[in-house]
């Protein structure tokens, strides 16, 4: 897979040389969806999720093993020769659609997508021996590092290890390297790290490269997150601790690619979440009667739900486009990812807000799952770059410069 990592030149907005996108779901993908949905319905219903979110450990026992290891979902992005399933971003996107629908607490986006894609970029980089920096390293160092990366990838792909990139959840693909956090000295503590409490391993970007630090060697202090299903924590790793996987150049490119894949596939999570919100709202308003009519027969409400459906038609196309572009390594993948994020973030938030509103009082209760979706949608809006940041990226990519 080839992907430009540093978008410098504006791309031609209408490049005719691109392969056509495949925006549909294949039959195999629908089978995967059915399997994941069945697993989640059985083991991770909203009531089960609600029962755990205040414990600080929202992950349902055994669910990661079932999905990641037994079903092989953790290894979808990883080629078979590196111990994975040799599938692609398209399939991983389907898993995320389902995890979004059910608002499932699982470190899938963080470990099986962001961390995995980051390591994949390193693995491919070390095979090509392309960059200056790799060449200047001693050959045996490089060999050792690449074996280390391959070993980590196999562990991640099998679901044995959960790895998390130690950056704030809000970090956008275009962020500087290492990402700085206001008020926090670099390579000290990183706040806002998603799924840190589930991690066995941290990938830590430092000024001189990317390090693998075992969780046992790190301090993890949980924070109180808006979205209780995706726990956040401050992660502190001692300066220089862990194993260096690559120098700053290769690491910068790898982290950017990890975050780009994360942002692109987050759109599928947002899509799934929004679909659930609309379906549930339609179901509820058809049944709920006021003024001697189902409230869903009032045109003011019908139009709001129809409008939401229209937005979902767009979100489905945008999320699929991002997943397909990542899978095939198209040149305009960064653009399609930014478009999907800018669009799906706002669609998911609106769907969740409408879901709460059109449920009336019941939508405000802790017992009803609408708030799970709302909190996830709002936090997803900030995750991996806000819509505004993605729009800035689009402006640069297609040459729509801001005023001077």
């Amino acid at each position, binding site marked *: 897979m080839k992907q430009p990592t540093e978008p410098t030149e504006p791309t031609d907005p209408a490049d005719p040389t691109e392969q056509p996108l495949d*925006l*549909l779901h294949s039959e195999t993908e629908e089978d995967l969806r059915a399997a994941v949905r069945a697993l989640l319905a059985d083991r991770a219903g909203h009531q089960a999720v609600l029962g755990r979110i205040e414990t600080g450990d929202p992950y349902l026992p055994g669910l990661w093993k079932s999905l990641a290891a037994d079903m092989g979902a953790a290894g979808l992005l990883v080629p078979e020769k590196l111990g994975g399933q040799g599938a692609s971003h398209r399939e991983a996107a389907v898993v995320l659609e389902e995890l979004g629908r059910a608002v499932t607490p699982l470190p899938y986006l963080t470990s099986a997508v962001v961390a995995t894609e980051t390591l994949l970029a390193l693995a491919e980089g070390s095979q090509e021996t392309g960059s200056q920096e790799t060449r200047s390293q001693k050959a045996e160092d490089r060999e050792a590092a690449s074996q280390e990366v391959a070993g980590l990838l196999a562990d991640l792909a099998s679901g044995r290890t959960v790895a998390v990139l130690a950056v704030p959840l809000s970090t956008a693909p275009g962020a500087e390297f290492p990402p700085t956090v206001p008020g926090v000295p670099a390579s000290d503590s990183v706040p806002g790290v998603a799924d840190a409490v589930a991690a066995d391993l941290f990938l830590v970007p430092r000024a001189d490269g990317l390090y693998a630090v075992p969780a046992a060697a790190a301090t993890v202090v949980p924070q109180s997150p808006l979205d209780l299903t995706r726990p956040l924590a401050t992660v502190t790793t001692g300066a220089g601790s862990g194993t260096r996987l690559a120098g700053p150049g290769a690491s910068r490119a790898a982290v950017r690619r990890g975050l780009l894949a994360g942002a692109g596939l987050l759109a599928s999570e947002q899509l799934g979440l929004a679909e659930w919100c609309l379906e549930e709202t339609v179901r509820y308003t058809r049944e709920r009667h006021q003024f001697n009519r189902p409230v869903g027969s009032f045109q003011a409400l019908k139009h709001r739900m129809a*409008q939401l459906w229209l937005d979902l038609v767009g979100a489905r196309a945008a999320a699929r486009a991002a997943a397909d572009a990542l899978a095939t390594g198209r040149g305009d993948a960064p653009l399609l990812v930014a478009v999907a994020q800018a669009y799906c973030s706002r669609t998911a938030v609106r769907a969740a807000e409408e879901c709460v509103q059109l449920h009336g009082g019941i939508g405000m209760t802790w017992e009803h799952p609408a708030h799970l979706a709302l909190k996830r949608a709002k936090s997803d809006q900030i995750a991996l770059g806000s819509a505004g940041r993605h729009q800035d990226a689009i402006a640069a990519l297609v040459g729509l410069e801001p*005023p001077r």
Partner: protein
Amino acid sequence: MTGAEELRVLTRKLLDEHPPAGTDRTDFLRARFDAGLAWVHYPVGLGGLDAPRALQSVVDAELAAAGAPDNDPRRIGIGLGMAAPTVLAHGSDEVKRRFLRPLWVGEEVWCQLFSEPGAGSDLAALATRAVRDDAGDWIVDGQKVWTSSAHVARWAILIARTDPDAPKHRGITYFVCDMTDPGVEVRPLRQITGEAEFNEVFLTGVRIPDAHRLGEVGDGWRVAQTTLMNERVSIGGARVPREGGMIGKAATTWRERPELRTHDLHRRLLDLWVDAEVARLSGERLRQQLVAGRPGPEGSAMKLAFARLNQAISGLEVELLGDEGLLYGEWEMRRPELVDFTGRDAGYRYLRSKGNSIEGGTSEVLLNIVAERVLGLPPEPRNDKDVAWKDLAR
């Protein structure tokens, strides 16, 4: 069934026998129709080969590469998009043979005599009467309005009331009307842009032979559904490259005129750029669903998105232009042959796009359709279903 390779062979044969360079445009289009390469999914003998619809692109690509003439779909949009599928589905063999070829070739332009002063969104309330005379012909009297292209049309699809005693949906019949009949009077209706793209049409004693009826007497509403469904899909369903629609015009102005930029406009332009790209991807996905034989209900979504985007983008463009946005190209009353959504200047686009959420079903009515047919929400309460049309309050 005809496959892609076979279609390629047939297309090359057509090109060999009628080299585009030395062939008259109309002759070429007629030959293409007769070869079954006009719309390959139509039946043999009617411009098609009973092939899968998706394979049309194979033929189109070959012909475009050879520089063959096209049947300008902008000029004959109502014929191609609405009349043809209705004639095909509900016409007699004789009617199909008579009308489809000149329609497709573009020798005969069509218009749609549906809307009336008292019946727009509530189309089934229409009052134009068709009464059968002793010879078995139909005599039509009434008034239609907002009729696009009536001034250039040779034929019209027409719905008229044939049974005032039946409830409104059940007393309607569907006809093909001859626009050269002496009882047809077309008067230009000047519109918001200053030009007259649509018309009022007065029908006085217009005689229509029974052979030009489509579907059964009293079954016109069902026949009209074929037309309306195709209308919604054909508006806003065109394939465009990135920045291909109205957003391309606004983006070009932005790039070429840095002195006009403000931060507020930049944010709004990017919002719309994202929406336009997503609408383009949705259209692409819809076409892929059709090709895969899995048509979705997204057709109405495209028309709604297209209307909203055109209005928002052209509105922003006028604002972006500032002092120039205060000016307008020309107000002179013209009667254009083409319906033109994106042409002329930003002011024209802004005004013309206001029609996009009205023509072919208003956005409000389409939202009702999405809510009821796609989402399954309960229908509006109604009190006109079982009442004879003549007894309804008007």
